[in-house]
């Protein structure tokens, strides 16, 4: 794997701010819900399925919205393997950032409850903790699940990207 292309792809992904920020928020919500789903036997399948659908749609959305850029990169000699790293770069950026946000929020809420509980009424923090915080074990399992669920989507997105001919960039002139 060409790490230089991967790191540059992450930087490149960050330039599509609106899409990336939107999906970071969606993924953070998804991580919380999948973590809860995994903890309750009746719901896990539903949330895992929802995560699968979203991850797949997101990967396809990236390949679609980057179609012209992909065609240009192919014109200047990028291979399909290099193009796959563009897709992976954005997915890595979004998944890891969402994971870190949920992790940070969980740690902060836990800290706030523990710190203020002896002296004050921490009802609000406890409610938020119940709503947003995820236990460490569940969080790491969820990250693993999300990464695995991302793979079919990336595969599909790469298939779509492979079909983008360099000529497409020229036709859109």
């Amino acid at each position, binding site marked *: 794997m*060409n790490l*230089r*292309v991967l790191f*540059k792809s992450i930087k*490149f992904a960050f*330039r*599509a701010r609106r899409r990336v920020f939107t999906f970071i928020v969606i993924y953070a919500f998804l991580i919380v819900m999948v973590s809860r789903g995994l903890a309750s036997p009746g719901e896990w399948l539903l949330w895992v399925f929802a995560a699968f659908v979203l991850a797949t749609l997101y990967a396809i959305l990236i390949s679609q919205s980057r179609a012209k*850029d992909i065609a*240009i*990169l*192919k*014109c*200047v*000699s*990028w*291979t*399909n393997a*290099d193009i796959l790293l563009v897709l992976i770069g954005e997915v890595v950026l979004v998944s890891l950032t969402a994971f870190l946000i949920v992790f940070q929020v969980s740690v902060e809420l836990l800290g706030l409850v523990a710190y203020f509980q002896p002296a004050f009424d921490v009802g609000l923090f406890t409610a938020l903790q119940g709503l947003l915080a995820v236990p460490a074990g569940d969080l790491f399992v969820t990250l693993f699940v999300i990464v695995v669920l991302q793979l079919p989507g990336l595969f599909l997105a790469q298939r779509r990207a492979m079909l983008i*001919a*360099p*000529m497409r*960039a*020229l036709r*859109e*002139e």
Partner: protein
Amino acid sequence: MVKSIIQLEDVNKEYGRGKKTVAALRHINLDIDQGEFVAVVGPSGCGKSTLLHVMAGLEQPTSGRVLLDAVDVTLIGERDLPKLRAQKIGFVFQAFLLIEDLTAYENVEAVLWPSEEITKEKQEQMTLEVLREVDMLERRDHFPRQMSGGEQQRVAIARALVNRPPILFCDEPTGNLDSKIGETIMKYISDLAKSKGMTVVLVTHNESLTKFAQRVLNMKDGAIR
């Protein structure tokens, strides 16, 4: 003896099927020497751009052979074509085709990113050098939307030249520029090609640009006259 770097042998290109078949290229035979500057002129729709795309391996001919530096492009699979493009070809397009989310510097350097043989430092050095050559060093951190058409085209030229290809294909490079800037851009291309001994194939409908070429090919109805 000067060797041929581009050879086309009885190249035909057709679009569509059956009664709707349109012949874009008809029996093209062509030899272009190393270091030669060739202009292909003709009216819109005569097949000039198709000829360029076929030469560059962007489109496969329906029949015939295309050899770039003795390598038959028609026999190379999709997997190996990018490597050939990286080693032998630079492109300059009418619409610049810069990536909007990358700066001028990144647009040029992006050509080199996949190359694991060239170190990061060397990539940076090559990029800065070629941006200096096209006089765009000062604007390297600007995005395409922050640049004029002429500046964008100079970045596109830098991108085409950064990997020092022996062949430069230019498809209406001045088509989106006013005539004065167009002349300047053509002079850049001509001077850079001369100084580096590059082969240039220029496709244009603007006959005034043929003064930069050593040989002019006139195309009509998919054939060279």
